[in-house]
Every structure is written in structure tokens, then in C-alpha cells.
């Protein structure tokens, strides 16, 4: 096991106190177990040399400066779910931002909140709802860090039609750069509050992230102002149950519908029309067959063996879920009328969920709190996801179609659970913008040790995005993807590598999930 340089640990201890730094192997392994998106056959990712728990921005700065002094790489994480949260090689310092967990400000009128890294989406949503606001919760669920997904991750979420995309929701940001200096993006840098993230002049948010973030490779984000959106539902809903047993009363101004389209193309038409009509709080694709492995995984094997049942589920493949929500009954009535009209125009079928028993369950867990995605672990204990490039919606849907064919081959080879392949999930974002995403997950049990096949799937899915012109998407996720994609996309990787060098001259920020410094690429 690689330890920190002798004096470095002592310096960190002086900064943080002995209770907030550890190099105990058992403790460190808590950061080396990162099965999500750890795509190699290894179960563990590299163990850090030590883990540090800062409480303040000054602590973070001190840690980063010490890393620079000793030439030790670091990787910071918030909730730390997935391999990109941990080090890519032994001997690095893990920074766990758990102690930085406050909501610093919640501005009701101007619709933003300033948060530290360890505020989870569920916490922020609960506080925001009390004042008639909502935050964007990513598909991974409300247990994720809102700051992390906004500054450093992707930002897909089922409510995107109303709550945008994570990467477009940051306002002011406080950022400890890889050299330990602090950069404040936007208005906080000029002591003008937190409400604006771009400028003065060029938007430096552009180096913080693009459609995806650098996964902690360019330093540590210690505060972020997050744009919030209107919430028209109950401010403090009374919910019983923990997940599958959730029950709640739903106001009549919150109406949820399933709309079933006959084809990929018609589904896209439906999505375009919904966006253009400026209706719905959100609209998201969610094939019915996807629900089997989420809700009754043990029955999944039996169900999918039945040709008759497969046919039935196929009829519900292009299922979209729409939520209408408003403070105004008139508005919901109007929107429902439009939705019904659009359903007819596109040859779809509409099912009114509000009349079903258990409606409260769907509304709360799927529609509002975005909890259900984590159920993807039930079937096999693990899953991966791919495609899902944010695109004009025709292309987004095409990704689901292509994904279905590629994934099927790997289902046939038993690398993934048979779920009828197309479980393409994703919706339209930002109101009338007509772009959205559709990612296709796949379930498996990583304990079977067959990681090689899943790696191959990801490679093949990446190749297919190039072949069919489907953008980058989640296929640019694995480390080193820049080697394949960079040269095809105007050498973006070289620009990023120059940025990396400029802000991280000592290459102290772990670059595995971003790009290395330009010096390393060019040697």
C-alpha cells in the first residue's frame, strides 16, 4: 500500500485535526470500493493513501496546497457514488467533502439556493418545496449531491422539462483550483451575490464543465448556487411509507398520465408537440418492460420467457409519463385538454393515472422525488448505462432504437438480464427547446465476474454512436474516451489538455476522468 510522504500526513493533521484524516487501510478501503462504472475486472479501485475530511473552503485550499507541495495527486468527492469519485491510482489523497453539508442560502424570490457539496438533492428539494420551489434531481436519485452533479457530473433528470439540465443550472460557483487558489465564477467573484454564473466577460463556467463535468479532475467545488424552479404542488406533502409502500394524497392540480405511442417516430412527435405546446411539468420516456426488473425482478425471468407477455409489453414499449402541475386548476384543465388532443394527433393512447389506486406512489416516487431509478440495482445488484447524448429529440429517440439492437446481442450472450432490451429512459428538457435524452441501462450481477463482456458492450455502443451520428452521450464516460472521440470532434481534448495544464501545472488533480495535461499528451 502506498502511503503519503512522511511529513505530509502530519501537515494535513495540523490543518484538519487528527480525527479528520486517516490512513488506516480498512478506512481507506471505504473509498476503494466503487463498483459503479468500475469497468475493469477488478472489484476495487485503487486505494487512496489517506482520506481527508475538510470542513471549510480554507481547509480544502490548505489540503490542495499541501498536495502540490508534495507532488501527491488528489481526488475529491461529495456523496461519492461511482468510480469517478475515487483515485485512479494508489498513493493519492482522497478528499471526502462530507463535512461541508450546509444550505447556505435559499433565495425564494430569485429562485436559487447556495449549497455546499454534501447537500443531497432530497434535502434541497424538501427545503425548496416549502417556499414553492423545486430543484433538478438527477436520474441517479435524490441521494446524490446536487453540487456534484451540477458542477462535475452530467445532469439528466426526469423533470428536465421544468427543471432543466443539471449542467445548465449552476449560477455562482466557488472553486478551489488544483493549485489551491480560489476562483469564484460569476457574481460572487465580484461580491455581487450568487445569482449569476457567467462573467465578467467570458463565461468561465465553460471550463468547469460542458455537457458533462470533469469528475473532480480540475479541483474542488466548495459552493455552488443552484437555479431553482417553480413548484406548484403541496409545500409539505404528507407521505407514508418508505418506497414501495408509499402513499400520499395528491392534489387535483397534479395530474399524471401515461401516453403510449405506436413507434419510436410517433413518440418523438409526441415529445415535440408537448414541448411546443408549453404544457406539462415533465415528460419522460419509460418503457413498461423496464418496470418489471424494477418492481418484480424475480418475476422478470419468468415473465420475459413468455412470448405472449413479451408481445403485450412490446405494445407498451414507447410509454411516456407526463405530469401536469400548476397552482391553477384552469391551467391544468387546459393542459389536459391539449395533451389529449396531442395524443390523438400522434396516434397514441392516453391513460389517466390519477384514477388509479396507488397514484400517490407514482406521483411522489417517480414524478417528484425521482427515487425509482435506484431500483435498477434490484435485478442483479448492478447496472450500467449508455447512449443518452443530449440531442434534438428525433436523434435522442434514435439512440434508443440503436441501443436496443446493440444491447440485445449482449443479452443473448447472457451479459445482461433480459429485459426486452429497450428500456430507453429520458425526456425532453427546458420547455420549448425540443432537445432531450434517452439513455439505455442494462442490468447485471457484477459478482459473476464477467466484466469483460460489459466493457465490450460499452465499446460497441460508443462505436455505434459514431456510426449512426448519435453524439457523445454517456459513451464518452469511460476514462480515455477522449482518445477515440477527441480527433473526431475538432480535437476538443487538446483544448481541454491545455486548460488542464494552465490550471493544474503540477498535475495534482487526478485527470483519469478528464484529460491529462497537454505536456503528457504530446510526449
Amino acid at each position: 500500500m502506498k502511503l503519503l510522504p512522511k511529513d505530509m500526513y502530519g501537515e494535513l493533521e495540523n490543518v484538519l485535526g487528527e480525527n479528520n484524516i486517516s490512513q488506516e487501510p480498512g478506512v481507506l478501503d471505504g473509498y476503494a470500493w466503487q463498483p459503479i462504472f468500475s469497468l475493469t475486472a477488478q472489484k476495487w479501485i485503487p486505494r487512496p493513501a489517506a482520506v481527508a475530511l475538510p470542513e471549510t473552503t480554507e481547509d480544502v485550499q490548505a489540503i490542495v496546497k499541501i498536495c502540490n507541495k508534495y507532488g501527491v495527486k488528489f481526488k475529491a468527492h461529495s456523496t461519492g457514488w461511482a468510480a469517478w469519485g475515487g483515485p485512479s491510482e494508489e498513493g493519492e489523497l482522497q478528499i471526502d467533502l462530507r463535512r461541508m453539508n450546509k444550505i447556505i442560502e435559499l433565495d425564494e424570490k430569485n429562485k436559487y439556493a447556495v449549497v455546499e457539496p454534501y447537500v443531497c438533492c432530497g434535502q434541497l428539494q424538501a427545503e425548496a418545496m416549502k417556499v414553492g420551489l423545486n430543484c433538478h434531481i438527477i436520474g441517479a436519485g435524490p441521494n446524490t449531491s446536487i453540487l456534484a452533479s451540477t458542477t462535475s457530473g452530467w445532469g439528466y433528470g426526469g423533470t428536465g422539462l421544468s427543471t432543466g439540465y443539471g449542467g445548465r443550472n449552476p449560477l455562482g460557483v466557488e472553486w478551489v483550483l488544483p493549485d489551491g487558489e480560489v476562483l469564484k465564477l460569476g457574481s460572487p467573484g465580484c461580491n455581487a451575490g450568487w445569482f449569476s454564473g457567467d462573467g465578467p466577460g467570458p463565461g468561465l463556467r465553460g471550463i468547469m464543465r460542458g455537457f458533462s463535468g470533469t469528475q473532480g479532475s480540475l479541483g474542488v467545488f466548495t459552493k455552488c448556487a443552484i437555479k431553482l424552479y417553480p413548484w406548484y404542488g403541496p409545500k409539505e406533502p404528507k407521505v407514508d411509507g418508505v418506497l414501495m409502500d408509499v402513499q400520499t394524497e395528491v392534489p387535483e392540480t397534479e395530474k399524471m398520465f401515461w401516453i403510449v405511442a405506436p413507434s419510436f417516430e410517433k413518440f418523438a412527435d409526441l415529445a415535440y408537440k408537448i414541448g411546443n405546446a408549453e404544457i406539462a411539468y415533465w415528460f419522460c420516456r419509460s418503457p413498461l418492460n423496464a418496470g418489471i426488473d424494477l418492481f418484480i425482478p424475480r418475476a422478470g425471468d419468468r415473465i420475459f420467457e413468455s412470448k405472449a407477455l413479451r408481445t403485450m409489453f412490446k405494445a407498451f414499449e414507447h410509454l411516456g409519463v407526463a405530469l401536469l402541475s400548476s397552482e391553477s386548476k384552469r391551467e391544468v384543465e387546459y393542459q389536459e385538454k391539449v395533451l389529449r388532443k396531442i395524443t390523438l394527433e400522434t396516434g397514441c393512447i392516453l391513460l389517466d393515472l390519477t384514477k388509479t389506486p396507488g397514484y400517490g406512489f407514482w406521483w411522489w416516487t417517480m414524478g417528484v422525488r425521482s427515487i425509482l431509478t435506484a431500483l435498477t440495482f434490484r435485478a442483479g445488484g448492478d447496472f450500467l448505462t449508455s447512449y443518452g447524448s443530449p440531442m434534438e429529440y428525433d436523434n435522442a429517440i434514435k439512440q434508443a432504437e440503436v441501443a436496443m439492437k446493440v444491447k440485445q446481442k449482449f443479452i443473448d450472450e447472457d451479459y445482461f438480464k433480459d429485459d426486452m432490451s429497450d428500456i430507453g429512459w429520458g425526456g425532453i428538457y427546458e420547455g420549448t427547446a425540443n432537445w432531450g435524452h434517452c439513455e439505455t441501462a442494462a442490468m447485471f450481477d457484477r459478482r459473476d465476474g464477467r466484466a469483460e463482456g460489459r466493457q465490450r458492450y460499452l465499446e460497441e455502443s460508443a462505436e455505434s454512436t459514431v456510426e449512426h451520428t448519435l453524439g457523445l452521450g454517456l459513451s464518452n464516460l469511460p476514462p480515455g474516451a477522449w482518445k477515440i472521440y477527441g480527433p473526431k470532434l475538432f480535437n476538443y481534448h487538446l483544448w481541454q489538455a491545455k486548460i488542464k495544464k494552465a490550471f493544474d501545472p503540477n498535475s495534482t488533480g487526478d485527470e483519469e476522468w478528464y484529460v491529462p495535461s497537454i505536456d503528457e499528451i504530446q510526449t
Partner: protein
Amino acid sequence: MSRLAALKNDMEGCSRCSLCKWIPMAQIKSWRFAKVCPSVDRYNFHAFSGGGKMIIANSILEGRSELNEAISEIIYKCQLCGACQVSCQAYRDDIDLADVLLALRAKCVEEGLILPEHQFMIDSMKREDNTLGMQKCDRGKWADGLDLVDVNTQEVDVLFHAGCRFSYDEDLRDSVRNWVVLLRNSGADVGIAGKEEACCGGRAFEIGYQGEMRNYAEDMASRVRASGAKLLVTPCSDCYYTFKYLYPKNGLDLGVKILHTTEYADSLIKENKLRPKKNVPMRVTYHDPCHLGRRGEIYKSGWSGDNKLLRPVKFKQTGNMGIFDPPRNIINSIPGMDFVEMERIREYSWCCGAGGGVYEAYPEFASWTAKDRIVEAKATGAEAIVTACPWCERVFNDEIEESGEDMKVYDVIDILAMSMEGK
């Protein structure tokens, strides 16, 4: 295969989602009261969480790290409250987190990594049949003057098992006395074992002495048999959990129906045999004891196998079949009572801080945990926190005395007694 090794698949299933640190996501109502694991909340390293301890276990099994004093401290700084399992099993079918935590305790004892405070408890149990270092001969003194039937000399229908804490803690004396009197006054043919009552052994199991519990279980079984009782009633949540869950999980059957006193009282109220009449104008909140609530859920036997992905959901110990409603029904039956719920309740309740040997070994941590609960109780506007476990009551009272906080602590029987005309 060792107990720990048998759970390797559970450990390997962990996705590191950290849901074990939070109350179930569906229930988060505020920033302040969203967390559910006192250990990781206090000590922050991931290793302290339920999932983190599973990773430690896996790391030890794979020889990546060793079980040493520092790691044993992480394992022991845990009330074994079970909240992590509830949150995990909201999603996952194939991970029994609580089993891993208990197996880790046993492993610590096997390796000789024993806390002196825990050693004290075990020695006290062996010598004096209680965990508190008290004398066995004093165990029955709590019932002095009540003239209760002694089951050592006479058979009864209902055996009342006070438990160690209620037997010896003088501050809680009124509560345990009122409980047994309530049973008697309801017409139950109830008796006690007095100084012959012994520890249920549950705490021994929790601190890693799994074999010791078996001794006490067998002792308990023979006492129950000898008493002739068809029903065993206890006011202690820890004992309740031990009887309902730990014993059957370890193949031990007492052969009688088991009720907590709140269940008993609730049924009396439903049958109209108990009528709280006096007005008790008080705003109260109720604290779900871990061992009565989520951990008090009956052991769901009937499935075995290697692949828990194939285990039907009905065999998951999700905690939702614990005892939550009877105490609430009792509170709601009392005229004038203004009952307000905290945010973290039922199977996702925040622990009082006392369990798992923490009260004994890490009193500052126990106190810190209790304080968080009292803050939560205060946030409801309640004047009093009502609960149904002597360990919760002890640690809350200790913390309130220390901090000077303006909050009363009652057992359910205390407020029930206030409402009964006469006693």
C-alpha cells in the same frame, strides 16, 4: 464457513449508494432531519456507515486489511440501530446489512478485540445475570410492595419480564411498576420471576458474544416453561427484540406468544377494558425505539439459499412490521393529548443513542445521538418526548440533565397513568 464469510455476497452487492446514511428518500422533509446513521453523522468517514462497515468486512475477508483496534473501534461505535438496513432494503433485496454488522461484532470478540466496558457487561452477566454490574439478589426489588405472583412458586398465564434496565434503574421504577399493575388490574393472571429473572442475553449477542445469548435464551426458555405462561410480556424494547427476532433467528423458540406492554395496553383499549379518562393537556411527540420498531419486527423465517436475489420480498427484514402503532394508539386515546410527530419516525426513526453497547463504551457518542433526537423533538413544539424503552428513557434523561434542556421524558405508561382515574 465463518459467519462473516457466509455474508460475502451481501457485501459484494453494495453499490456504495450511501442510502444507508439517510432516511428513506421518500421521507426527507427538511435539510436538518434527513440523516439516519448516528455513526457516520458523528465520525464522517465512510467506514462508519452501514455500507462502509460492509466494505470493511469484505476488505478483511479478502486480506486487504486487518481487523485491528482502530477498525474494531469503528465497528463498536455503532448502536446497531438498524436504520441503515431499512434504507438499504427499501431498494435492495439481496443485502442483509444488519447481519453483517452483527457478524463483525462476533469477529471482534473472536479476535480478542473487546472493549473493557463490554467485558464488564459480560462479566456482570455471567456473575449476576444482568448487564449493569448490579447484584442478582436485588433484581426483584423494583416490585417490592406490589405483592406480585412469584412464578418460581406458582404458575401463571402471563409472565412479565422486566428486563435489566427496568429492574435496576431507580429513576424508571414508577414506570415498570405501573406497567405490571396495569396488567394485573386488567385481570391478567400475571407473575414475575423476581430475583430469579435473568438477562435475555440480547445485549451479549449485540456486542459479539453470540454464544452467551444462547445460554441466556435456554435459561429464559426453561423459566417460561416452568412458569406455565402462555404469554410473555415485557416493557423493555431490547428484550422484546431479543425474544421476537434474535431468538428465532438463532433457532431458539420460547414457545409462547410475546407482546410488548404497549401492544398489550393497546389491545385493552381496543377491547374497551382500559379507558383513559382524565384530561392530560400536553403536547407530546413519540420516539420509536429501534428495538421495538424496526428491529422489533418478527424474524421472517422460511427461506434459505445462497442467492438472495432469488429470495422473495416477504422474507426481507425491512422493519415495517415492527411495533409502531400501539404506542401511538395509546397516546391518541388519552384525552387532551396533543400528539405531534417528529420527521424521523417509525422504521426510519433516529436512534436514541443507547444501543449496541454504545451507552456503556462511548457515553459521549450516546449523548450526542440523544441530543440530536431531543432537538428534533423540540422542533415539533412538544413539551415531552414519550417512548417505550427504558434505554431510550435513560439516555434522554441523562442528556437532558447534562444540557439543562427543557424537555420531559415519559414512558407510554407514565402518560397513561396520568390519565387513569386512581392507580
